[in-house]
């Protein structure tokens, strides 16, 4: 019994950490490097999950020749279980469903990311943030109410693409998959950050005019950053959906975006190691609180505490150590005075009228 508990605990922690690392990396690329406050992050996360939620059952049914009669909302869970039974006998069916939904997720996510990069041209940064939040909430509202998509408030059932592996092999496979995918994505992010593309993004973040005058296409840079970031978030959504087994629109609220944002800032928004640190801090607090909750008797649900602690930590970090736990390392290309001046200029724009 204990062994199973431990396996599930480790699996849960590993998958969540992987998902958050991917999400934090994507936001770090968009905001930390490129200066785009993508506060619609939850929507791009959702796109991946919704692709799985909407398609895994339907695709699976097509592949096995099963007819789906009735309401998606009422039957998706049952249908998911039926398809999973087919998968239990056919490894390739499972992999096929997984890969197909992953491709759809990445494509849709990327397209949406490109679209979302256009407003960035004309809006001041805080207004852009607001717009993206509005966009994110709209997607959630639509998914919540348009039942055929992901079953509205009931959510959608997801096919278990690893049904052919028995426990605990299934869990271990899922764990490895998440960790490997997260590692790959993080390494890609790290490489991008250290590449000329990364330098161009940071230059654009610090001073658009100068970057443009040096011949860099701002529009294209933004588009690329958002596209890659959104594709990453989408992948996280796919992993999350298959892990949880169902997809519910209420899981992808603005609060989720806030959570990721806090992780990114606490971890360190300009530094590639930041996305590894931020989620670790949150999950550490969260698990610690879960652990001690069994020892203490509290008159309230201690899960709330993780959020409060995270909020307090962020405020302290911004006040005392604004770079985050791992601050951005200075580029070797700009002289120190110029970099400070650019940073100071950004701060002054907040506090002065033009």
């Amino acid at each position, binding site marked *: 019994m204990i062994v199973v508990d431990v396996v599930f605990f480790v699996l849960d922690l590993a998958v969540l950490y992987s998902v958050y690392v991917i999400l934090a990396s994507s936001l770090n690329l968009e905001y930390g490097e490129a200066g785009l406050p993508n506060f619609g992050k939850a929507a791009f996360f959702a796109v991946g999950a919704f692709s799985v939620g909407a398609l895994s059952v339907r695709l699976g049914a097509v592949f096995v020749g099963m007819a789906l009669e009735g309401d998606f909302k009422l039957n998706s869970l049952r249908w998911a279980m039926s398809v999973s039974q087919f998968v239990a006998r056919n490894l390739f069916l499972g992999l096929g469903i997984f890969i197909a939904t992953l491709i759809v997720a990445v494509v849709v996510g990327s397209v949406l990311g490109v679209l979302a990069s256009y407003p960035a041209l004309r809006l001041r*940064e805080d207004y852009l*943030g607001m717009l993206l939040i509005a966009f994110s909430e*709209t997607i959630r509202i*639509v998914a919540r109410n348009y039942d055929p998509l992901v079953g509205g408030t009931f959510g959608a059932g997801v096919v278990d693409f690893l049904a052919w592996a028995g426990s605990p092999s299934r869990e271990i496979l899922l764990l490895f998959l998440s960790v490997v995918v997260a590692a790959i994505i993080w390494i890609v992010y790290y490489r991008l950050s250290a590449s000329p593309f990364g330098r161009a993004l940071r230059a654009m973040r610090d001073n658009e005019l100068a970057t443009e005058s040096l011949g860099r296409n701002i529009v294209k840079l933004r588009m690329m950053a958002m596209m890659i970031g959104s594709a990453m978030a989408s992948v996280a959504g796919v992993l999350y959906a298959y892990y949880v087994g169902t997809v519910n629109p209420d899981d992808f609220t603005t609060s989720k975006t806030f959570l990721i944002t806090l992780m990114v800032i606490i971890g360190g928004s300009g530094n590639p190691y930041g996305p590894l640190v931020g989620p670790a801090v949150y999950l550490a607090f969260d698990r610690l609180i879960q652990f001690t909750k069994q020892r203490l008797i509290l008159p309230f649900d201690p899960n709330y505490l993780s959020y409060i602690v995270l909020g307090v930590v*962020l*405020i302290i970090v911004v006040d005392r150590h604004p770079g985050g736990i791992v601050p951005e390392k200075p580029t070797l290309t700009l002289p120190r005075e110029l970099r400070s001046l650019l940073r100071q200029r*950004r701060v002054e724009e907040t506090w002065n009228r033009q």
Partner: protein
Amino acid sequence: MAMDLLVEAVVYGNLLSLLSIGLSLTLLTTRVSNFAHGDFATVGIYVAYTMSVLFGANPYLFLPFSFVGGLLLGFLVYRVVFEPLRGKASLVTLMIVSMALDFILRYSVQIYADVLQRSLGVYTRGIVFKDVNINLLGFTFPGLLVISSAVAWLFLFILYLFLYRTKVGIAMRAVIENPSLSEALGINVKRIYALSWMLAASFAGVAGVFLPFRITVNPDTGFSILLSIFAAVTLGGLESLLGSIIGAYIIAFSETVGVYYLSQIGLSTAYRPAISFITLALVLLLYPRGLAGLWSKR
């Protein structure tokens, strides 16, 4: 039917106007897009609710407590969170700090709700207040309509008097326009900033008390209407107090009437929030100066 809709729209407008003017104020003075603003309203609700449960009286009577609670909360939030960051943080960083503040406030209220339930044995989620009827001039009006209108318009009028007829209020308008000149003239800018946050939070607290009279309230109710508040402020033109008031009533009427039409064409009324979001998006993308762009020369 039309009468009900009208009443609903006016009440919602009263609420939103108190909320949007506060959000506008803190945006104009300290440049913070405050994602915790909705939670100021939630605190107001729970203050009034706690008192009404403890003393067994109608929540309307505890409006002053919610007001004072808001004053204290606003002061604390500004001094502890935002004043240390003055001159040090960018616009987006301030937004992110307000997100952290939202987490802190919202989940603190959740904890408070749990504790209150445990200790007093009352329901602290799904709160609803029962309205009273008021008889005026031979007609019977819902108390919510009369009281929310009276309170909202009184507060807005007092705010107007404050900003245009008192030295401190004029100083606040000056600080909004040019903080360094204000500083040079000897105006205590820090105090003005603190005052703006106190006003914003207290107005929100009072507005909050009206919420349980029209919908069931939970610790995250304030947060859930935050985007309507932002839509109202954006529609008004993000840098205009008058604009936010007008924007608030427009959003209120649009949402109320819009929901009615949604049901007529067979779409779920749960699409209601989309009205605000779409308004916000359209204004930001097409005409960012908002309504204020129509009368402002600058």
